[in-house]
C-alpha cells in the first residue's frame, strides 16, 4: 500500500527558512503594531532644499538616503531624485541606480514566493554560502542559511555544526533562534532546541519565540516555561495579530488535545485574525480533526500558504490542486519529506497514476529518496506498473532499516502486494493480515482500512473464493474510518 506521514498530531513548529524568504514573509517584523507616523527629520528637509536648489547626482543621493532612512516612500521630491539618478547613462552609478530602483519599485509580490526549485537543487548554493562564511565568519545569518542547505542535501552533521556557530553568534536574534530550534528538531535533538529557546532573552517577550518553545515542549511532552507569559502576550493589544497567530494556534492545539474544544476554538479564532501560513496550516489540520471553525478563506491571500492549501484541497477531494500545492510546499520546506509523501500518496492512491508517482519521486531531492515511506510508495507504484524486480530491490533495502511501527506495517502491506503479483498468494495474504493486525495494534484504523482495500483488490484480481468477504470487509472499514479519498471509487474498483 502507499503510505502517508503520521498526521495524528501537528504542532506549530517554527518553519526553517532561509533569511531572504523569512524576511520577505514578514516573520522578522517587529511584534508590535506599526504606527505609521513619519519621523520628522530636519536633515531630510535640508536635503530636500538642497535638491530643489541644486539638482545634481550628489543632492539626489542625499535626498534618497534621507527618505530611506525615515522610510518616507511617498515624497514627490525623493521620487523625482530617484528618476533623475535612473536617467543617467553612466555605468559606474550602478549601485545608485539600485537605490533609486528600490525607492521607486512597489513592494515585491509574495505570490508564488519560495517556489523556485532550481535554486535549491544546486550544490552551488552551499558552495556560495561556504565562501561567504569563510569571508565573513561572524555573520550568523550566513551560517544559519548554510545549515539549512546542508540539511536539504542531507548532511545532518554539517548542518548541526553550522547551526551551532550561528547560535553562538546570534543567540539574541529571532531568526537565528527559530531556525536553530527547527534545525535541532529536524535532526532529532528537540532538547537542544528547547534549551536554546528557554535560555534566550526573547523567551517570554516575543510571541514567535514563545510559540516555538511551547510547540516543541508539547512535542516532547515537557513542561513549557512560556505558557503563562504566552497568555499575557495574547492579551497584549500592542502586539500585531500576525505576530500572535502562531502562538494562538499553538495554544489552541494544546487545548484541543486536552479536550477543551471551546477554549481551543477561541484561540483558533484569534489565530485567524491575521494568520501566518504556518498558523493557517495548523487551522487546516485542526479542521481535518474536528469541525470547530468555519473554513477560512484560502484565496491565496496568505503568502506561501502551500501546506494549508494542500491540506484544504485534499480534504475537499480536489486532488490535482492538492498535488500542485504540495509541490510548492516541497519547494518551500525542501528539507521536509511530508509534502512529497502527500503528493505521492494522492497520485498513487487517489488518482491511481503510478507512472506520475514514479517520476514525482525520482525527480525529488536525493534526501527524500532515502525516506522509507517515499521509497515504499515508489515500490508500490513500481509493482503496480509491473516493474517487480526494481520494486523488490527497494523493498529489501528499506525493510532492514525500518524501526517505526507505522512504516513497518505499510511496508509489510506493500510486500503483500508484491507477493500477490509474483504469484505467492499465501505469503501475500499473510503479509496483508500482519500489516492490518499491526495497524490495529497501534490504533491506526484508517491505515488498516486502506490496507484492507488493496488486499481486496488483489483477492478480486485473482478471483479468490474469499474475494467477496475481503471486499465487504474493506468497504466496511473505509466507511467506518471515513477514508473519504477512497470512498467514491470503492464501488467502481471493487464492484457494488
Amino acid at each position, binding site marked *: 500500500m502507499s503510505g502517508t506521514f503520521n498526521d495524528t498530531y501537528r504542532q506549530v513548529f517554527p518553519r526553517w527558512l532561509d*533569511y531572504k524568504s523569512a524576511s520577505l514573509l*514578514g516573520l522578522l517584523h517587529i511584534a508590535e503594531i506599526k504606527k505609521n507616523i513619519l519621523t520628522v527629520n530636519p536633515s531630510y528637509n535640508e536635503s530636500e532644499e538642497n535638491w530643489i536648489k541644486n539638482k*545634481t547626482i550628489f543632492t539626489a543621493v542625499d535626498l*534618497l538616503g534621507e527618505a530611506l532612512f525615515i522610510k518616507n516612500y511617498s515624497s514627490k521630491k525623493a521620487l523625482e531624485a530617484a528618476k533623475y539618478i535612473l536617467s543617467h547613462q553612466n555605468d559606474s552609478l550602478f549601485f545608485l541606480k539600485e537605490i533609486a530602483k528600490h525607492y521607486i519599485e512597489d513592494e515585491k509580490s509574495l505570490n508564488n514566493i519560495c517556489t523556485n526549485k532550481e535554486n535549491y537543487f544546486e550544490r552551488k548554493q552551499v558552495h556560495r554560502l561556504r565562501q561567504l562564511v569563510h569571508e*565573513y565568519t561572524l*555573520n550568523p545569518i550566513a551560517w544559519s542559511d548554510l545549515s539549512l542547505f546542508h540539511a536539504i542535501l542531507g548532511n545532518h552533521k554539517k548542518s548541526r555544526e553550522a547551526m551551532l556557530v550561528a547560535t553562538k553568534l546570534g543567540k539574541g536574534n529571532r531568526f537565528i533562534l527559530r531556525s536553530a530550534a527547527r534545525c535541532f528538531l529536524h535532526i532529532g535533538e528537540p532538547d537542544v532546541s528547547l534549551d536554546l529557546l528557554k535560555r534566550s532573552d526573547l523567551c517570554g517577550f516575543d510571541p514567535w519565540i514563545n510559540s516555538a518553545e511551547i510547540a516543541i515542549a508539547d512535542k516532547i511532552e515537557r513542561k513549557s516555561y512560556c505558557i503563562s507569559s504566552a497568555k499575557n502576550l495574547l492579551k497584549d493589544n500592542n502586539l500585531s495579530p500576525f505576530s500572535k497567530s502562531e502562538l494562538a494556534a499553538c495554544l489552541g492545539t494544546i487545548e484541543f488535545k486536552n479536550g477543551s474544544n471551546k477554549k481551543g476554538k477561541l484561540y483558533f479564532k484569534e489565530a485567524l485574525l491575521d494568520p501566518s501560513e504556518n498558523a493557517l496550516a495548523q487551522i487546516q489540520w485542526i479542521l481535518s480533526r474536528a469541525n470547530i471553525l468555519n473554513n477560512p478563506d484560502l484565496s491565496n491571500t496568505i503568502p506561501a500558504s502551500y501546506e494549508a492549501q494542500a491540506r484544504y484541497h485534499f480534504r475537499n477531494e480536489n486532488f490535482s490542486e492538492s498535488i500542485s500545492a504540495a509541490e510548492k510546499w516541497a519547494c518551500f520546506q525542501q528539507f521536509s519529506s511530508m509534502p512529497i509523501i502527500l503528493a505521492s500518496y494522492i497520485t498513487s492512491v487517489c488518482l491511481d497514476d503510478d507512472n506520475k508517482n514514479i517520476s514525482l519521486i525520482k525527480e525529488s531531492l536525493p534526501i527524500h529518496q532515502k525516506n522509507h515511506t517515499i521509497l515504499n510508495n515508489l515500490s508500490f507504484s513500481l509493482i503496480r506498473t509491473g516493474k517487480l524486480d526494481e520494486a523488490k530491490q527497494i523493498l529489501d533495502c528499506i525493510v532492514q532499516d525500518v524501526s517505526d511501527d507505522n512504516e513497518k506495517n505499510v511496508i509489510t502491506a506493500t510486500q503483500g502486494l508484491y507477493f500477490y503479483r509474483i504469484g505467492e498468494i499465501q505469503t501475500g495474504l499473510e503479509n496483508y493480515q500482519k500489516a492490518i493486525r499491526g495497524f490495529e495494534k497501534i490504533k491506526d484504523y484508517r491505515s488498516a482500512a486502506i490496507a484492507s482495500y488493496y488486499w481486496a483488490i488483489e483477492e478480486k484480481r485473482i478471483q479468490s473464493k474469499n474475494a467477496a468477504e475481503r471486499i465487504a470487509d474493506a468497504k466496511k472499514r473505509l466507511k467506518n474510518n471515513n477514508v473519504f479519498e477512497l470512498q467514491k471509487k470503492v464501488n467502481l474498483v471493487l464492484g457494488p
Partner: protein
Amino acid sequence: MRPAECLQGVDLPGNWHVVSILTKPNTSTGGKFSVGYKAVNDKGQTAYLKALDFSSAFQSPDPARALQQLTTAFNFERDLLLKCKGRRFKRIVTPLADGSVNINGSYGPLNNVMYIIFELADGDIRSQIAQWHSFDLAWALRSLHHSAIGLQQLHTLGIAHQDIKPSNILVFPIEGSKVADLGRASSIHCESEVDSFPIPGDAGYAPPEQWYSWKISNDFSPRYLYDFYLLGSLVFFFFLGCSATQAIETNLLKAHNKQFDQTDFLHDLPYIQSAFIESLEALKTSASKLAGNSADEIVMIVKQLCEPDPRRRGDPKVLRSRRPQHDLQSYISRFDRIAFLAEKRMTRQ
C-alpha cells in the same frame, strides 16, 4: 538683510579685506547660521571668511536659549580649531584669523559680527569628483590617506569629528585634502551640546549603532569609532557614490521588502551585518573595476572600518593587542601604501 550679510568691503584686523559674498556650501551643517565671504589680505592671500549670524536666534520661539546655543557652539568649535592650530595640524582646516567687527547699521548689539577666516579651498571632494572625466584612483586614495591623518590628528587631541562626509573634506590646490567643520565634534576635555545628540552628524551617514542610540560603553571611546565608520563611508562614496549608511539601509529594506522596523541593536545586528555584506559585495564589484590590484585591500579596509558591530570595528591586529581600539595608524599606512602604488602606476602610464 541680516548683520552677517553686511560685511562686503569691510576691512578687518590683521590686514584682511572682505571682497565678496560666497554662495553657501549646499550641504554644510549649520550653514544656516553663517554667511560665507571671500577675503584677501595685504599679501594677496585669498581666504574664506565665515561670519556668524546670531540674528537668526531671534526668529526662534525661545531667543535667549537659541542665542545661548549658538554662542556656546561657536565658542566650542573655535576653541577646538585653535587647539588644532596650536598643534600645527596640517590635515585639519584651521583658522587663519578670527575676531569680531562692527558694521554700520541699526542692529544694536548685533552690529558686532563674529567671524573666522579659513584658507580658501578649491572645493570639497564632491566638487572635485564632479569635474572628473574618468575615475582618478590615485587621487581618491591619497584623499582618503589625508582624511585618515586628519582624523588621527583630531583623536590625539581627544576630539572626535562625528560628521565626516564628502562635503566636509575640503580640497586644497597644493596640500591636498583636509578635514573641515568641527561643528558636530565632541571633545574628551569639555562637554558640548552635541554630546547629547543620538546622531551628532548627518543621519544619512550615521553608523548603525547611532540609529538605535546604542553605545559600546559610556566613556568617550565610542565617538572615535563613529569616525572609523565615517572614514570607511568615504570609500563607499568614492567607489559607489553613496554613503555606507545609504548602502546598508537600501539592502536592509530590500531584504525586508521595504518593511524593516528597528527593535534593539543587538537583536537587529545580524540583519544589519547581512545588509553590510551585500553592500561590500557591491563595493567589491565597483572596486575591482576601478582599483584593479588594490581592490581586495580597499574592500578589506572598509570591512574593518565600517563593521556594523562597534565592538569589532577596526583592525583585528589592534583589537588583539593592547593598543586602543581607535588607533588609526594602520589605516594611515595602508592608505598611504595603496595610494603610492596607484600614483606609481599612474606616472608609468
